[in-house]
């Protein structure tokens, strides 16, 4: 017991534990919509895009790098939405082109002109122990905003995720909801980037949601389970990272992946059947129909 309580005697660990759990819960919550929309790859793409924004911000506004990176990410997310709707480019291809080009541009600008600001390694793998008060406030603010968005727009978000065309006919402003979801997603990635790191944020967007899907057939319960699994992964991962001496983000993702394997073993074929449809999604509004 003393071994378990020992790290809690350090203020930095207490702070890290809260931040890790909150980050896991935030990504678990928003990840449900991303996974069910068949956009799992967007987490990977946007985190890279925002990283590019971090790098590019060194050029213009090093002291406002978080704001600049956030705007960079939001612009990328909205560009993906517009390209997919206005052209025949598929969502995965649009995400691949726009976010990775955005990442490459940022890195190229940094390589040419950058020298200060948050280190690349911290942004890549997360540095939860060095997190500032401002970053914690930002994470709490984004978490509250996301929870409020999901709570107040629950029905519209569910309807537009399940069937955007019928939702639009039924009075849901689907384009607005999708744009708002992309903005909230960008902010969530931005707020958790310093905790979990660019390379691992995408995993935490997907893993809790997929585990939750294997456990339930109800959307409401999936939302609750995914948030709880994200929170638990953050909490346990942070603890284990202390003892194992590895970066917190890495351990959080490994805990999530272990939970995935355990749930898969327990639910077996039923879990696989439930999660089988996660890569199929309604693109009625996007795709050209059979006349």
């Amino acid at each position, binding site marked *: 017991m003393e071994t378990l309580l020992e790290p809690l005697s350090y203020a930095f660990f207490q702070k890290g534990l809260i931040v890790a759990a909150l980050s896991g819960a935030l990504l678990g919550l928003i990840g449900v919509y991303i996974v069910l929309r068949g956009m799992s790859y967007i987490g990977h793409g946007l985190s890279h895009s925002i990283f590019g924004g971090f790098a590019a911000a060194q050029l213009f506004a090093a002291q406002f790098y978080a704001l600049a990176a956030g705007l960079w990410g939001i612009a990328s997310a909205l560009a993906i939405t517009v390209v997919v709707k206005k052209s025949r480019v598929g969502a995965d291809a649009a995400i691949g082109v726009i976010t990775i080009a955005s990442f490459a541009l940022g890195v190229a600008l940094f390589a040419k002109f950058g020298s200060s600001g948050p280190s690349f390694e911290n942004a890549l793998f997360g540095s939860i122990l060095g997190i500032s008060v401002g970053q914690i406030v930002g994470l709490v603010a984004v978490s509250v905003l996301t929870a409020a968005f999901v709570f107040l727009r629950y029905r519209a978000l569910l309807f537009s995720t399940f069937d955007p065309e019928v*939702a639009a006919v039924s009075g849901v402003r689907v384009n607005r909801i999708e744009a708002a979801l992309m903005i909230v997603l960008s902010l969530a990635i931005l707020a958790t980037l310093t905790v979990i790191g660019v390379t691992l944020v995408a995993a935490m967007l997907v893993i809790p949601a997929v585990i939750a899907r294997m456990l339930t*057939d109800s959307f409401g319960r999936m939302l609750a389970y995914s948030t709880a699994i994200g929170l638990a992964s953050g909490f346990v991962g942070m603890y284990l990272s202390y003892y194992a001496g590895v970066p917190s983000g890495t351990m959080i993702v490994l805990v999530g992946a272990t939970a995935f394997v355990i749930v898969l073993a327990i639910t077996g074929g039923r879990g696989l059947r439930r999660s089988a*449809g996660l890569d199929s999604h309604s693109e009625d509004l996007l795709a050209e129909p059979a006349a």
Partner: protein
Amino acid sequence: MTGTGIGPELIRIDGASASYGHHRVLTDVSFHVHEDQFTGIVGPSGAGKTTLLRLLLGTLAPTAGDVSRRPDLRVSYVPQLETVNWNFPVTVMECVLMSRTRGRRLPWASRQEKADVHGVLDRLGIGGLAERHIRQLSGGQQQRMFLARALLRQPQLLLMDEPTSGVDVSTRHDILHLLGDLHEDGVAIVLTTHDLNGMAAHLPHLVCVNHRIVADGTPAEVITPAVLEQTFGARMEVLEHLGMRVVVDEAPSNYMAGGG
């Protein structure tokens, strides 16, 4: 060319054309929907049936012509079952409740909303299935669930895309009767179908579409060999059976004998 419905007009399409990119699907279509209408849009795959439905829905803007609808019109839409992601994690109750997007903002259903959902599910004969996952329903039950979602909005106009596609004969009869009852209750209905004998022949009004409106009228007026050939691009024979029109494919030997 107009629908045969009477009473106030709900939607009016005048000389509309529709395209996807450079691919024009409908040309110069005029179609009016009235309050008492019960119309089947008939045509082969790729003829523009769903596109015409989308013009009515307002999810597709015409490239030429006009579409106008009554400002306060409540429309419900039932999509094709084949387009639905049946692995999506929703129960029947959650799915039906989706159509309640106005008013209450809280995620969970109020007591009144639950009673409303159970009421409409009971009416459609699937009252005991509210907590089932949508994949656990039969084809007919899935169609009824979407009807329940549509009816919860208390629509004045119900639009359905291929409502009998992929369901068995008995379910098709049930759906036809159900739609007949709804129409008697005052709901205007427009649906698409490629099922001439099982569906179209039983409807009071048909519109034949093949990138334009080929014909428009009662089954007796529209189900003729000439109209069907223009619509489907194939020769068909029309027989009379118990006062109903029955369409059969013309035997290939007749084509050859006729040189056609």
